């Protein structure tokens, strides 16, 4: 077999193979595109079959030859049908192709061979024109697409072009028969090339498709890789849409996500503005594509439900490709590519778009993860900063003593967390009815407001109406129609936002934290939360500081009052001492002189004086001595007030016996019966307690002097509480009960001095001593029925008000 024959055989084999492949493909999918491909290649295959049958039979009837020629002339028409799948073909051209085909067929049938050139050439011209048009359309189709479709169209165009050239060359052979041998070789070469192109274009081997797909995918990926890290989702999706449109030559593309309820599709990106918005979708093909998570061709139009038809109508599409954007663990949405009709090479388009979508899903997943991670890191960093600052504020507040220092410490730290142009603290001053700024931290160019004050009512009225836990946030002061007076200063300074958080301690408004900024709407909810927290801490600290101050104030006041009182007491004590001193000196000396000189007169001149004069001098002596005793008693009494109590456990029974022994010598043989009862031990100053017993017992002896037998009973009895009352009872002259309370005053004498000598100080001394021990003294008596004097010593010694304890 010669080389040209081999080429012819190969060409024929390929055409037959292509026809069988496309037929199988059509039978499997039964769609318009595959039908048209099958028709176009079937047409060529039929010609080949006729040739083969003719050469096998060694000739063929003319009708068969004519059929072959007509089928050849029909090829451009079938090609034009293919073009219609990606480019609209005008009706006129369509009609021209059909009419041309019919006229050519009629001419061939009507005119006997050999055909004159006058007929052959127009037929060839018709063929070349329509074939050329299709070729150009394929080239333009290839131009607008990329990837597999691009290459397949390009090859289809090349094949068609070569067939057109083939027919042209054959036409030349008709016109110039002498060129036949060259023409045969060229035409053979052209037909082999054309069929090769058709093979690769319409029955692309898998390996070739893969390589084209990969090349396109690489191109798609190469772009976003550069920006993948920071790419916004929308940007990624828009890139997917435009790449999809480019790859398929579609009308438009969009990426849709389901809304949260999965009732509608939300367009996230689109190449055509008409697609924007939300689409309600029934359980149609789109929904199935989403559910099945598999790429799908939506179309042709007769398969749409109403919602889908409406959607496709927006961009005048006749079909759509739906590709889920999903990874194994997450579905994002659908990529929809809208096409005029179901694409010629839909499977390839879907495969490529599936690759794009998958990569996009990975990018989205990665970006989402990255975003989440970054958000988490930012959140962590933020909360870390916040915690740090808050603990610093805590420390600063704890370290600060005065409200002003607390406020300054808190503000300095707060400004690092919440940027603002001025942070200040206002406190309410209870007494002065003012709200005063005690601290202010300011951005450059803003004056401090520290020390400024406004009427308390202005502040309270501004804060209080805002509820129990109010915060006032004004994001644009200049927009206020009638700004309250509190804001006037801020407005004058050009501050636009203000955040005022009341300081509340124990449910009482004690002031406010004021943040202001020149920016409008400067404080975000998170910053407000931080400010609120700091305000709460500050409120507690300020309240503590206030309580501390108050406490210190009280302590100080108390201390100064004590000091004052002490000074007063010391002063009066000194005066008393000076008085006693004077009394002891200045009263005693003249008394001593009176007594002395009266004695001298008596001693030296007594015999010369009348008895009466001597008696008077004696009276002078007696009075002087009595006055001296009185003075001594008073001094003793006053000394009692100043003398410190020296308390210890004392057995009163011992003291009483000593006193009775001491006084026994003064009884001059009187008959005295003394009964001593139980006398429990007590806590007392023994010297002073002895004085009490001395005074009471000597009183009892004194006022029983008229009794033949003086009876004294000394004992104790329990009285209310756990107190023990000691008593001295006598059978003496007694006294009128009504006078009982006068007995214990200084110089109060019940009996006249003639009968019962004494200074009137004795019971006063008893009362003073008992009182200093924290006890009390009282008496029961009736005239001539004797008297009983009781005293208690209290449970423990108390310091009487007038006493100054010496340190």
């Amino acid at each position: 077999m010669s080389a040209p024959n081999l080429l012819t055989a190969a060409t024929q084999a390929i055409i037959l193979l292509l026809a069988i492949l496309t037929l199988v493909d059509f039978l499997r999918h039964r769609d318009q595109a595959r039908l048209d491909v099958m028709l176009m290649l079937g047409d060529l295959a039929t010609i080949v079959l006729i040739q083969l049958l003719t050469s096998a039979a060694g000739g063929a009837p003319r009708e068969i030859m004519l059929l072959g020629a007509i089928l050849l002339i029909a090829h451009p028409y079938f090609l034009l049908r293919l073009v219609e799948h990606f480019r609209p073909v005008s009706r006129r051209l369509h009609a021209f192709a059909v009419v041309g085909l019919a006229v050519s067929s009629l001419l061939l049938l009507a005119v006997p061979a050999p055909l004159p050139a006058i007929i052959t050439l127009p037929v060839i011209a018709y063929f070349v024109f329509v074939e050329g048009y299709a070729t150009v359309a394929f080239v333009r189709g290839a131009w607008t697409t990329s990837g597999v479709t691009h290459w397949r169209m390009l090859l289809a165009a090349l094949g068609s072009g070569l067939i057109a050239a083939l027919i042209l060359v054959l036409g030349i052979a008709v016109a110039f028969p002498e060129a036949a041998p060259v023409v045969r070789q060229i035409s053979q070469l052209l037909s082999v090339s054309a069929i090769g192109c058709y093979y690769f274009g319409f029955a692309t081997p898998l390996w070739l498709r893969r390589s084209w797909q990969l090349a396109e995918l690489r191109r798609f990926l190469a772009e976003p890789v550069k920006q993948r890290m920071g790419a916004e989702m929308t940007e990624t999706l828009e890139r997917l849409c435009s790449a999809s449109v480019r790859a398929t030559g579609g009308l438009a593309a969009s990426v849709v996500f389901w809304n949260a309820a999965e009732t509608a599709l939300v367009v996230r990106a689109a190449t055509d503005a008409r697609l924007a918005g939300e689409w309600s979708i029934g359980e149609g093909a789109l929904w199935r594509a989403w559910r099945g998570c598999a790429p799908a061709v939506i179309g042709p139009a007769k398969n749409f439900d109403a919602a889908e038809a409406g959607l496709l109508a927006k961009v005048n599409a006749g079909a759509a490709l739906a590709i889920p954007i999903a990874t194994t663990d997450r579905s994002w949405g659908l990529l929809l590519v809208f096409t005029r009709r179901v694409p010629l090479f839909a499977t390839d388009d879907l495969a490529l778009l599936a690759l794009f979508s998958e990569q996009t899903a990975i990018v989205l997943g990665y970006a989402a993860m990255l975003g989440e991670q970054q958000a988490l890191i930012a959140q962590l960093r933020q909360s870390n900063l916040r915690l740090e600052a808050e603990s610093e504020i805590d420390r600063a507040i704890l370290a600060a003593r005065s409200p002003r220092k607390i406020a300054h410490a808190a503000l300095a730290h707060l400004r690092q967390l919440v940027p603002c142009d001025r942070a200040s603290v206002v406190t309410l001053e209870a007494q002065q009815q003012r709200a005063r700024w005690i601290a202010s931290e300011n951005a450059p160019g803003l004056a401090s407001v520290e020390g400024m004050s406004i009427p308390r009512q202005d502040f309270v009225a501004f804060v209080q109406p805002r509820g129990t836990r109010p915060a006032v946030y004004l994001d644009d002061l200049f927009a206020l129609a009638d700004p309250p007076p509190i804001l006037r200063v801020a407005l004058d300074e050009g501050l636009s936002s203000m955040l005022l958080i009341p300081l509340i301690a124990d449910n009482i408004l004690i002031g406010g934290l004021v943040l202001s900024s020149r920016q409008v709407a400067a404080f975000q909810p998170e910053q407000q939360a931080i400010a609120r927290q700091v305000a709460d801490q500050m409120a507690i600290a300020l309240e503590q500081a206030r309580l501390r101050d108050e406490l210190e104030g009280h302590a100080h006041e108390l201390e100064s009052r004590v000091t004052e009182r002490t000074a007063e007491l010391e002063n009066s004590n000194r005066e008393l001492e000076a008085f006693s001193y004077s009394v002891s000196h200045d009263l005693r000396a003249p008394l001593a002189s009176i007594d002395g000189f009266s004695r001298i007169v008596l001693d030296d001149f007594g015999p010369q004086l009348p008895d009466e004069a001597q008696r008077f001098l004696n009276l002078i002596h007696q009075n002087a001595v009595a006055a001296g005793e009185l003075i001594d008693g008073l001094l003793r009494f006053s000394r009692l007030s100043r003398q410190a109590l020296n308390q210890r456990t004392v057995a009163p029974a011992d003291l009483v016996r000593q006193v009775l022994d001491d006084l026994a010598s003064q009884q001059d043989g009187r008959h005295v019966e003394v009964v001593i009862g139980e006398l429990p031990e007590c806590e007392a100053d023994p010297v002073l307690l002895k004085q009490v017993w001395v005074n009471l017992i000597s009183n009892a002896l004194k006022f029983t002097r008229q009794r033949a037998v003086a009876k004294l009973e000394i004992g104790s009895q329990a009285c209310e509480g756990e107190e023990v009352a000691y008593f001295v009872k006598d059978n003496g002259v007694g006294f009128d009960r009504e006078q009982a309370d006068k007995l214990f005053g200084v110089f109060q004498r019940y009996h006249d001095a003639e009968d019962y000598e004494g200074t009137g100080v004795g019971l006063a001394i008893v009362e003073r001593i008992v009182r200093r021990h924290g006890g009390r003294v009282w008496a029961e008596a009736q005239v001539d029925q004797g008297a009983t004097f009781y005293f208690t010593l209290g449970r423990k010694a108390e310091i009487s008000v007038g006493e100054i304890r010496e340190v």
Partner: protein
Amino acid sequence: MNVPEILLVEDNASTVELMRYALKKNNIANPVHVARDGAEALDFIFGTGAFAGRDIRKSPAVVLLDLKLPKISGLEVLRRVRADQRTRLTPVVIVSASREEQDIAKSYELGVNGYVVKPIDFVEFTRMMGSLGLYWLLVNERPSTNRNE
């Protein structure tokens, strides 16, 4: 002039007279020099002022000193007498109306030789003055250093 002198420091004229009387009653005939205030007492003791030129080596046998005195108090007189080398051994007895604890304590702190409280009763007063004179003028032996100088 071997009879030792008594220096009586007392502002109350009546008391001075009573003391002189009491001394006389007790047969104490030693000369008595009376100073009417603390300053005068110091002038006498140290030979200054009105007593310039007095031989201060002739120190009184005893100084009977009241506490409450015009110009310079009794305690101050005592302090100065005790502070001076020449007079620190001079016997000083406080004769006071005060029974105040602090007066007594202070006097002893400053090195007094005795402290007696003037009784109001003149009989007792006379007895007390007798005891004082007897003790300081007759019973008590004085160091001889003063006179040998």
